[in-house]
C-alpha cells in the first residue's frame, strides 16, 4: 500500500503537450478517480506512475521515494487496461499465474494456487479457470484482468477505464464490485475514467483533468456542489449544471440575453460580485423547480423521461435551461410553465476566466 505524489509533472510527445505542471497527491488506501475527457492526459498520468512513460519534467514519488529511475517491475504497481491485455493462448488460470511465475520471485506452487483461487473467488470467475481467454465475454475478460492485478498484492492499483468497454448493466455491477474490492483490500486505487457517474459513485476523491491540467481535486460532493470553474460545472453531473450569462443588480440576477430576472439572496457567498460585473450563473437542474406564480415564464422545449424523474429542457427566449422534476409532473412540449431556482445553490462564475467566485477569493 502506498502514498503517491506527483510534483509539477509535465509530459510532451514531440510538439504535443499532454500534461502541464501536474500536482497530484493520492493518500494511502484512497480510491482516487481521475476524471477527464478523451485526450485530457489521464492515461498518460497513469502510465507515468506505472513507469511505462517518463515525465518530461517533474517528479513522481511512491511512498516519498523519487522513482524516476525505477522500471515498471520495481515500482510494484498493477495496471488494468481498457483492452484487458490478457495473454492470448493461455487459460484463465495461466493468466492469473503469470505475474507469480517469473523465476526471480517465483512463489511456492501451493502459494500460487492459493492466491489464484482466492482471487478467482473474489471476482467470481472460479468456473472459468480452465477456459481459454478467447472464449470469454468482455465482462469475464475484464474480471480476469483485474484478477491478474490482485493476485500479486501490488502497492498501487492503476485502472485505465477498465469498465468503459462493457455494457451498461455489467458496468454498474463491476463498479460496485470494484469499490467493495478496494475497501476489502484497503489498497490505494487510481482509477481513470471519462465517465463522471463512475467518478462520482466510486471515488473517495476526484481529480478533474482538462487539457493536461488538473482543474479541481476534491471529494465528489465538493466537485459536484462547488465546482471550481465552468468546465468542471459543465463536465460533472448528468444533465450538467445550467450556465447562464448575466449580472447582479440589486440582489437580483439579471440574465443578459433576454433580461429575465431571478431573485438572488446569497449575499454572503457572492465574494467579489459587485453589481454589474459580467457573471455566469450556475445552477444544478435539480435546483430549478416549476411552480405556479414563480418569477419566470418559459416554454417546455423537450422532455426526457428517466423513470424516477423527468428532465425538462426549458426555453426562455434563446436560453435553454434543464430542470429535473419528479416523474409525476405532467407537462407537454411547448406548454408554458413558470420556474424558479433555489438561490442558495447558485454558483457564480467570473465571465472572463470562468473561475468560481467562491474559489477565486
Amino acid at each position, binding site marked *: 500500500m502506498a502514498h503517491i505524489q506527483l510534483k509539477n509533472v509535465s509530459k510532451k510527445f514531440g510538439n504535443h503537450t499532454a500534461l502541464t505542471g501536474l500536482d497530484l497527491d493520492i493518500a494511502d488506501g484512497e480510491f482516487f478517480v481521475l476524471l477527464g475527457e478523451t485526450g485530457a492526459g489521464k492515461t498518460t498520468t497513469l502510465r507515468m506512475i506505472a513507469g511505462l512513460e517518463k515525465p518530461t519534467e517533474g517528479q513522481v514519488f511512491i511512498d516519498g521515494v523519487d522513482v524516476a529511475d525505477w522500471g515498471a517491475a520495481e515500482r510494484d504497481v498493477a495496471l488494468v*487496461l481498457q*483492452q484487458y491485455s490478457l495473454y492470448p493462448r493461455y487459460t484463465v488460470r495461466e493468466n492469473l499465474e503469470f505475474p507469480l511465475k517469473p523465476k526471480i520471485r517465483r512463489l511456492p506452487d501451493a502459494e500460487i494456487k492459493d492466491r489464484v483461487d482466492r482471487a478467482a473467488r473474489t471476482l467470481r470467475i472460479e468456473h472459468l479457470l480452465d477456459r481459454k481467454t478467447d472464449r470469454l465475454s468482455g465482462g469475464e475478460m475484464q474480471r480476469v484482468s483485474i484478477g491478474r492485478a490482485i493476485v500479486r498484492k501490488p502497492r498501487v492499483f492503476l485502472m485505465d477505464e477498465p469498465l468503459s468497454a462493457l455494457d451498461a448493466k455489467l458496468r454498474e455491477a463491476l463498479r460496485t464490485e470494484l469499490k467493495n474490492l478496494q475497501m476489502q483490500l484497503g489498497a490505494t486505487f487510481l482509477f481513470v475514467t471519462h465517465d463522471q457517474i463512475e467518478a462520482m459513485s466510486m471515488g473517495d476523491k476526484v481529480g478533474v483533468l482538462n487539457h493536461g491540467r488538473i482543474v479541481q481535486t476534491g471529494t465528489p460532493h465538493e466537485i459536484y456542489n462547488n465546482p471550481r470553474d465552468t468546465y468542471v460545472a459543465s463536465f460533472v453531473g448528468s444533465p450538467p449544471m445550467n450556465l447562464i450569462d448575466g449580472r447582479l443588480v440589486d440582489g437580483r440576477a439579471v440574465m443578459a440575453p433576454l433580461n429575465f430576472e431571478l431573485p438572488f439572496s446569497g449575499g454572503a457567498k457572492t465574494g467579489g460580485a459587485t453589481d454589474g460585473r459580467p457573471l455566469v450563473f450556475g445552477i444544478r437542474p435539480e435546483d430549478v423547480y416549476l411552480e405556479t406564480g414563480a418569477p419566470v415564464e418559459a416554454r417546455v422545449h423537450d422532455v426526457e423521461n428517466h423513470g424516477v424523474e423527468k428532465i425538462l429542457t426549458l426555453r426562455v427566449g434563446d436560453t435553454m435551461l434543464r430542470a429535473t422534476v419528479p416523474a409525476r409532473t405532467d407537462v407537454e412540449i411547448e406548454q408554458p410553465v413558470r420556474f424558479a431556482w433555489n438561490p442558495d445553490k447558485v454558483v457564480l462564475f467570473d465571465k472572463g476566466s470562468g473561475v468560481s467566485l467562491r474559489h477565486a477569493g
Partner: protein
Amino acid sequence: MATTMITTLDRSSRAAARGLSDISIRNLFIIPTILFLIVFNIFPLIYSLGYSFTDFRASTNAAANFVGLQNYRDLLNDPYVWSNFAITAKYVIISVVGQLVVGFGVAMLLNRDIPLKGLLTTLLLLPMMLSMAVVGLFWKLLYDPSFGIINYALGLGTFEWLSDPKMALYAVALTDIWMWSPFVMLLSLAGLSAVPKHLYEAAAIDRAGPFYTFFRITLPLVAPILMIAVIFRTMEAFKTFDLAYILTSQPTAELISIRLYKMAFQEWQTGRSCALAYIVLIMVLAITNIYVKYLNKVKER
C-alpha cells in the same frame, strides 16, 4: 439482386459496347492461364508418371517397355539414392534451422524504433532478390581458397571450403542461409509487429523478465507465422539444385535433385528418373502435410 452483383458489366463500358458479356470476359482472363498450366505443368506431370513405369531412354530410338514398379523397386533399394536422401535431409535441416535462427534474430533486432529502419530492412532483403545462379557464382569466388575474401578475412589460409568433402555441404548451406534468412526475417517482422504492444506493457507491469516475456508471449504469438516460413523454406531447400550444382561437385554434397538431374540428363535413364522425381514429389507432399497439420494445431492453441 442482379444489379448489385460485382460481375455485372457496366452497361456503358467499352467492353459492353463491343458485345462482351461477363462470362466471355471471365473466360478471356482464365482460359490462357489454364491452357498454360495444362501444357507446361499438368501434361508433363501425367506424362512423366507414365514414363516412370517404363525403361524409356530419351537418348535412343528404342521403344519404351513397360516394366511395372521395377524402377521404384530398384530406386528404393539403391543405397546411393538413400545416401542422397540423407545428404538432402541434413542440408534441409542445417539450412532451415540456420535461416530461422538468423532471420528471426535479425527480425528481433529490427523490431524496435531505430533510425533508418526502412532502408536497413530493404538492404537486408537484397540477397533474397538475387538470382540463385548469380549467388552461386559469387559465393564460389568468395569461397575461393587462394583469393577468396572469406579465407582472407577469417585468416584461414588456403582452406578449401568447396572441395573439402566434409565442408562442402555446410558451405552450400551457409550460402543458402545467407540468401534466404531475409525471407524468414520478413515474415518474422510481420509476426512480431502484430504482437500488441499492450501485452508487453502488461508483462512489464507483471514484472516478467525479458526471457520470460519472450518465451511466454512473443514466441507463442509468432509461432504460426514462423511455421509458414518453415514450410516454405523446407520445400525450397528440399528441391535445391542450382546453388549446390554451381558451388560444388563433391559427392558428399550431392543433393537428391542433382542426383535426379544426372540420372535424367547425363545417364539418360529417363524412365527411372521419372520414378525418382515422383518419389521426391511424394516425400515433399508428405512433409508439407505434416507441417500444415502442425501449423493448424499451433494456430488452434
